[in-house]
């Protein structure tokens, strides 16, 4: 790991069996949901370093949730665990029968955060939503969210409903890593320019290993509000199927009479997806434009890279 790497500490906490190791394995280690059934309980803390977009390194602390470990985190290991935290992710099993105890631990955790890392961002995941009947999900989530917001004061928390069995997991994690990307505004400005120049309806930027959406620009209204996480999920699944053949996919073009979508390797850390609906623009032109923009975005990605704006040659 290079010395210029920017490390950010992310704490994953929540009671044992709530699904912390499962979600981390799916997002960062190419597990499929079914494989998580074989995971054993995490002993103490498992550290993993995930290189994310070149210079950014996520330092994940997956904290085993059994009572004895939890007690230790709040006492003997308190400083070690809660110091220098950028993000706390607290996972709640929505089907848990010990709600009060869960809340008690959560509050202890916040207390320790407030003392040691008062600027940390807090995310609560109401997890295993697939186990709740579909028509109950909205209601139950709203209730939990309200409770959690209230109990978190004076800190503020962002809540997501998640399940490893659908795309909601990608939505939550996209939002979380989005907070951690240092030059994200700049990335967005450039993506907008790019989208406008090539006359795209929409452009998405994915982190290459996880397929989390890290930036997007939309020129045209789209119907599906959940499309980013859905696309992440769809493409990640396909990436996993390719890996069964010891291959990975390089590019993809999908069209019907209403649209054309191009997904292509972009920079060394990203894939880009471009959505076009103007049928008069040939595929080849879009592909060349994507190629031409590569170098520019490659530079941007280096956190302290030159900050000039986008100039491209367009055919």
């Amino acid at each position: 790991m290079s010395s210029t790497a920017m490390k950010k500490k992310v704490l994953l906490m929540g009671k044992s069996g709530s699904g912390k190791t499962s979600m981390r394995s799916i997002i960062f280690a190419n597990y499929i949901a079914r494989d998580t059934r074989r995971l054993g309980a995490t002993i103490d803390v498992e550290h993993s370093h995930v290189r994310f977009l070149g210079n950014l390194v996520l330092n994940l602390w997956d904290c085993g949730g059994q009572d004895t470990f939890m007690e230790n985190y709040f006492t003997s290991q308190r400083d070690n665990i809660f110091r220098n935290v950028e993000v706390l992710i607290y996972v709640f099993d929505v089907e848990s029968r010990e709600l009060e105890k869960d809340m008690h631990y959560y509050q202890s955790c916040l207390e320790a955060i407030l003392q040691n890392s008062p600027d940390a961002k807090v995310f609560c995941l109401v997890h295993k939503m697939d186990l709740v009947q579909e028509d109950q999900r909205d209601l139950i989530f709203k209730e939990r969210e309200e409770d959690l917001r209230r109990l978190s004061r004076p800190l503020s928390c962002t809540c997501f409903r998640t399940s490893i069995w659908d795309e909601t997991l990608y939505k939550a994690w996209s939002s979380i890593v989005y907070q951690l990307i240092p030059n994200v505004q700049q990335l967005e400005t450039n993506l907008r320019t790019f989208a406008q120049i090539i006359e795209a309806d929409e452009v998405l930027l994915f982190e290459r290993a996880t397929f989390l959406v890290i930036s997007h620009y939309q020129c045209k209204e789209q119907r599906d509000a959940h499309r980013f996480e859905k696309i992440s999920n769809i493409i990640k699944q396909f990436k996993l199927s390719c890996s069964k053949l010891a291959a990975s996919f390089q590019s993809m073009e999908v069209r019907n009479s209403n649209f054309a979508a191009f997904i292509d390797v972009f920079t060394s850390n990203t894939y880009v997806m471009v959505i076009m609906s103007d049928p008069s623009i040939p595929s080849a032109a879009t592909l060349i434009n994507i190629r031409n923009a590569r170098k520019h975005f490659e530079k941007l990605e280096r956190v302290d890279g030159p900050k000039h704006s986008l100039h491209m040659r367009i055919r």
Partner: protein
Amino acid sequence: MSIVHYEEEPLPDSYGPADSFPKDFGYGEEEEEEADIEDCCSAPSDSKPRILLMGLRRSGKSSIQKVVFHKMSPNETLFLESTNKIYKDDISSSSFVNFQIWDFPGQVDFFDPTFDYEMIFRGTGALIFVIDAQDDYVEALVRLHLTVTRAYRVNPDINFEVFIHKVDGLSDDHKIETQRDIHQRANDDLADASLEKLHLSFYLTSIYDHSIFEAFSKVVQKLIPQLPTLENLLNIFISNSGIEKAFLFDVVSKIYIATDSSPVDMQSYELCCDMIDVVIDVSCIYGLKEDGSGSAYDKESMAIIKLNNTTVLYLKEVTKFLALVCILREESFERKGLIDYNFHCFRKAIHEVFEVGVTVQRSMGPQPAAAPCNKALALNGTPRNTI
């Protein structure tokens, strides 16, 4: 640069009779007429040829039907309730193969007077018997024997297919051993009843991987009378286009209707299935009209996926229900113009094959349910606007 579209140009008619399908064929132009087509072709639904799903309770029949034909994720089948009466699923409006799938309750009482098994078996093309391989299967074998012998007496033309199911929980050795054992015992039982002529086919299946789609593909292929023609067309197409492997897929179910005669390797088939998922899912998100109308899969549907090992996957629309998925090398794909031209001819030929099929069936008029030609399923390959 532009992509050359051959499809707009009428090509010399090199296959079959020139008037075998309307020149203005196309989904766009005839959308409004499609309602008529459905009407005129649909016999009373009960008389459509059918595939039966039978087997003991909780063996996985409903799960199979939901996963293969309704895109249910395997995980969701945990919540399926036990079936308590025959569920007749008519998938002909969304799928190429114009049949009904009948999902039976676990315990069928052949002696119940309301259960008209003669009528049911007469109109049956294939009987799939599902055995839970994770459970003790002694009772299942008794049931299997009872079911197939009864069905055989009514209609000896039925294809008897045995799915040794839920093998996801078994080790590879255990799978083979189980298949051998079930095969042996089932055939011994038939021999004891002097029914050696009754042929059973066995498949190892699970809803958690592609084995169930592959098995269903085989079951359906046996019911397609045009299969040799399709294989032949695929062989000609791939050898002239530098393509390694091609599958003709029923898009909605990911069943492959036909493939060229080179051996099928499971991994390639799986990758093609996964490609269809990607294409349909992405098209559902971006490819519908603004108000959500329209169809994700339409006449212009097409996809190209390039892998880092010089493999290219190429998908093209063939009919409303069918897609061709090809596997080829990057260097062959450089001659995309040639491939597209050959594809155009292939597509035309396929349309003619099924057009003829439909005409022949129609000219025979309404068939009594017992007619042997019922095994030749009516095919939904080609909608048309003139009868």
